[in-house]
């Protein structure tokens, strides 16, 4: 039975509103380690989420059966749960929180899983693994590839009809060097996940990157420990993705500010009255929610309640102006938000999430930033992250550090870490890199929610310079 027919068949439930969200997800992963084929896995999933509103309460029923009787049973359970929730409801919603939207979106990928050629991809992964064989001390040479295709069809009794095909590819490389001096791992950075296809993987660039990171892992074995010192900190985009994610993205989620996430992911130091008032960072700081970036990991047309997604500033010239939350949280909190009520798949209800959260480029070149530093450190590539449940006190570790002395990059150091507190840290932002330093990345897995959900997000950033940051190394 077609989705529209299924929706029509539920008319007699006399709900205030019903939506059906059909999601089909195909994925493929392949990995090679030390030039040995480690596995090729695929999955195909398809299911349906029924959303019912009764007396201002939403409830959900999810099934991977498309038998009309099963779908009906699912809708009836949701209807019953919504009716009973009215007695214990947290807020009362209306049709305003479910706008009528029609449209389509398709990722810009030109190739997908149907074009997958195991022979040529095996060769690519083997070549990349081989390229990391720069020294006998490189004991683990991993290459991992993932393709995902997510097709969503959302229809509702208010006339909404949205079709979205979000297709993503990701590749990750890592080289681990080991000797009597210890172990050091260097990676290709984030997941390199985008909405482009595997045809955009450049064989020669990947091989060159593989050789570089393996050589850097060897270099790190012989490097000195990072000093324990308060100094200037220059961060590369592949570390800033996580810094943005943990200390901007999560604290701005409206459901955290409302306290819905207190028992699991935590909540936020941000208060409702901070919107329009809080100096989140230095005036150089501009952060956007931007679902319109061509090919970025979390670009889309509308969120999973059918709200049209548009580019918005979250932080403008350092001031907090808008939160990350869908129409339900916006109503409960009475603050501006974005179209970010998203679900990982058909089996979870949509909650407030990040999408593409980007730090906008500034005016400084990398050279200008380095030149401005008397004593500092340039850190690249995240390897460890931790932050408290209010998103205040954080600690990050990076893979690769190089000291900056008298305006020049000097000694390589291993195990570089830094710690700080969110708002003071962003207010210590001294220089923001220009377009030449700007990179677009993404993360495949952001965990949150009860029940738990892992969702894909995008982050983009220029290199940035911060002053007087507490830096430290490894060891006892």
């Amino acid at each position: 039975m077609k989705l529209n027919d299924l929706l029509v068949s539920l008319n007699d439930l006399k709900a205030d509103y019903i939506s059906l969200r059909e999601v089909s997800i195909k994925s493929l992963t392949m990995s090679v380690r030390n030039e040995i084929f480690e596995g090729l896995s695929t999955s195909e999933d398809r299911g349906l989420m029924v959303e019912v509103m009764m007396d201002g309460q939403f409830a959900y029923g999810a099934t991977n059966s498309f038998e009309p009787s099963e779908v009906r049973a699912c809708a009836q359970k949701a209807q019953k749960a919504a009716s009973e929730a009215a007695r214990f409801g947290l807020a009362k919603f209306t049709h305003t929180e479910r706008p009528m939207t029609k449209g389509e979106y398709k990722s810009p990928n030109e190739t997908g899983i149907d074009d997958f050629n195991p022979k040529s991809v095996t060769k690519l992964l083997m070549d990349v693994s081989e390229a990391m064989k720069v020294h006998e001390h490189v004991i683990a040479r991993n290459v991992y590839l993932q393709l995902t295709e997510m097709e969503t069809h959302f229809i509702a009794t208010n006339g909404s009809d949205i079709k979205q095909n979000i297709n993503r590819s990701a590749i990750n490389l890592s080289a681990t060097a080991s000797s009597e001096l210890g172990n050091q791992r260097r990676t290709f950075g984030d997941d390199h996940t985008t909405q482009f296809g595997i045809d955009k993987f450049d064989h020669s660039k990947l091989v060159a990157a593989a050789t570089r990171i393996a050589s850097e892992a060897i270099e790190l074995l012989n490097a000195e420990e990072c000093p324990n010192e308060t100094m200037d900190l220059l961060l590369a985009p592949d570390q800033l993705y996580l810094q943005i994610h943990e200390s901007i993205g999560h604290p701005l989620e409206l459901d955290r500010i409302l306290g819905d996430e207190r028992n699991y992911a935590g909540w936020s130091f941000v208060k409702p009255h901070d919107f329009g008032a809080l100096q989140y960072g230095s005036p150089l700081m501009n952060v956007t929610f931007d679902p319109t970036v061509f090919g970025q990991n979390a670009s889309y047309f509308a969120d999973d309640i059918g709200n049209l997604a548009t580019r918005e500033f979250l932080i403008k010239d350092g001031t907090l102006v808008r939160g990350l939350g869908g129409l339900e949280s916006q109503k409960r909190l009475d603050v501006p938000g974005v179209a970010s009520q998203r679900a990982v798949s058909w089996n979870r209800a949509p909650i407030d999430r990040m999408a593409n959260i980007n730090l906008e480029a500034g005016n400084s070149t990398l050279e200008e930033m380095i030149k401005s530093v008397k004593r500092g450190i340039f850190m690249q590539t995240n390897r460890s992250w931790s932050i408290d449940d209010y998103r205040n006190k954080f600690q990050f570790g990076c893979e690769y550090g190089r000291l900056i002395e008298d305006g020049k990059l000097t000694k390589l150091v291993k195990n570089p870490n830094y710690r700080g507190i969110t708002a003071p840290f962003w207010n210590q932002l001294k220089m923001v890199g220009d377009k030449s330093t700007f990179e677009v990345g993404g993360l495949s897995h952001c965990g949150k929610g009860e029940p738990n959900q892992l969702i894909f997000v995008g982050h983009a950033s220029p290199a940035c310079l911060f002053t007087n940051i507490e830096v430290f190394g490894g060891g006892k």
Partner: protein
Amino acid sequence: MKALQSSNFEAFSKQIFALLEADESMTLNFSGEETIFARLSNAKIRQVTNLQQAFIDFNFIKGNKVLNFNIPFRADENDFSLAVKKISQSREWFMDIPEDPYLVRPQHFGITHEENLKTLPTNEEMLAQILDMGGNVDLAGVFTSGDIVRATINSVGQFHWFKTRNFSLDYSLYNVKQKAVKALYAGSDWSTEALKANIKDTEFKLSLMNIESRKIPRGEYRVYMAPSAVSELLGTLSWGGVSMSAHKQGSAPLKDLWEKKKTMSPKFSLKEDFTLGLTPRFNSAGEVSAPVVELITKGEYKNFLVSTRTANEYKVETNFASEWESLRSPVVETGDLDRSDIYKALGTGLYISDLHYLNWSDKETARITGMTRYACFWVENGEVVAPIEDLRFDESYYSFFGSALERVTNFSELTPATGSYFQRDVGGVKTPGILLSHFKFTL
């Protein structure tokens, strides 16, 4: 839900195995659930989802090559046609992929059938009781209930089926200052009285949080960690900490323990103990672990977790660990510190109930960082003085399970798994509390 009946899965498997050619073998891993999730905030309902789902993961071997695929299982004719399509695609792909030198072939580890399906009140009844009792306090969390299935069957005749019905209320209570206490009410036998007692006990603990919080400067302090905090420390150890493959590939933090360059405290012992009964002993290959696998005994290395694939690669003995060689049913041995003596033994220092967001700080020295969370107190001369503002720590496993470990409690607490990424987790952790002579806080 018919997809959760063992006969349907078994019949489907037989249909599939009948398609196999002479050089082919196959293992099917089944997981399914029928669940209600009620997301709660301010002791009210934020979202309710009723979910039914089932999946089968196929491990398909042809000659010396292997492929995996995963499809939904609905116990109808669509399952078979999709599986046939995937088998056909796999046979084409087999021609273009290399052999796997460390292949794990299916074996016959027996047949077991375990179902624990006690009758529970209806979801509506359980939820109404929770919200009626929690209605006077600020409660946030999730109520979950329903059936979970894990099963594995292979083409050489092995079949293990594990089905359980349980519930959990994973929650925290908040006072007006938004200080919180974490709690869990979970099991297979619902008791209104037990729920009431659980919430009352949590409310009492919350009342201790009404005193103004104290800001503790960074530095080293004596610390008591409650069992729930210790279970968090074990969670991070699951990230390659006791994995043989991680060790062999240069990413294991307990390298010095394995090489016997370092030891932990003689008071610290860690084992995998499947006699807890929270998780099946079989892994995704259907291999059945020994009931107990000692990992660290009296501070000394005994075993890492070794999957058969790792065993094949590194020519070591398997202990039938999971594919990821992570802890499935860890238990830390108890000691001699009585519950009534905890504060006195601590003297002056920090009582830590929970930890949050742990990650490696320096794997080479087994250092981790993380935050204190929920009901943590400053204690002076054995008396609770005040709750604390959250602190960040940075400390090594060789310290808190080693040189700094003074005492271990003579009781332990079971923390059932409540995670639900992809599907509801099974399993749990059993840990005592630990008393430490020093523990480093950095922010």
